[in-house]
């Protein structure tokens, strides 16, 4: 009977392979085959999150940005610079999502942390912090 690998080890292995330059498609296929074979497809979301953590520890940050409008290239670069300086990472990859519900501003999701500077969030803070 095969030893059940922990998610941390799987994520660490994938992150190491990605950092060392292995083709991403091959890594994805490898991971998918492993999860199907070990019947752990249900853990996919958690493993992806763990991989993001492992990559962040190795200086590669995958950040998702949510804003009400599409961001200009300058703004995106400014966000990348900010994330890079905040996390001390060598590389930042930005994924942009548009959500009108945030009204204005932006929200950055990083592995293990979040920076929410949207107007919707500020209004929510207004509602909760000043509510009696």
């Amino acid at each position: 009977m095969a030893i059940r690998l922990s998610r941390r080890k799987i994520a660490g292995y994938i992150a190491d392979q990605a950092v060392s330059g292995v083709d991403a498609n091959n890594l994805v296929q490898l991971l998918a085959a492993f999860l199907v074979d070990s019947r752990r497809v249900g853990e996919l979301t958690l493993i992806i999150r763990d991989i993001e953590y492992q990559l962040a520890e190795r200086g590669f940050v995958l950040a998702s940005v949510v804003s009400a409008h599409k961001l200009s290239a300058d703004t995106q670069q400014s966000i990348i610079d900010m994330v890079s300086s905040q996390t001390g990472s060598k590389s930042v990859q930005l994924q942009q999502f548009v959500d009108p519900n945030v009204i204005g501003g932006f929200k950055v999701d990083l592995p293990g942390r979040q920076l929410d500077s949207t107007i919707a969030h500020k209004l929510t803070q207004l509602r909760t912090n000043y509510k009696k």
Partner: protein
Amino acid sequence: MNHLLTQFATTEPASGGIFEALGIDWKTLIIQIVAFLILVWLLGKFVYPWLMKSVDERQAKIEAATKAASEAQAAASDAEAQVEKLLKKARGEAADIIATAKLESADVVSKSEDKAKKRADQIVADAKSELAKEVVAAKNALHNETLELVALATEKVVGKVITDKNNDDIISDALKAVK
């Protein structure tokens, strides 16, 4: 009587002395004396004892009745004195009871007044407290409702006025604040 005294007298002058001169007959006188003595003896023997006994009994009865009356009077006096004493004692006790009852009633009234006053004060204090709480709750509700309206209005207004350009400016300001 006169006839009795004179029937033995004689009109003739006495020849045997002064008794004869007075018309007294010795025989008749002796008989009368004896009869008198017999009468006295009979009376002393039969009538006087009975009469004296009757008188003594009556006197004894009278004395007994007097004594009984005196005793009754004394008993009545004692009873009256006892009654008076009891009445006096009863009056004293009644006065004590009345005084105690007055004091107790005054105490009860005082306590009732104090209790009623405390209760009234408590009701007033509770009402004030409840009113203050309701006022605070109403103020808070108004505050929260105003806050919600402000947030909602801000959301609507800002949502309409924000464009790509000023959104980038907002983000730029936010990034500066983060740095």
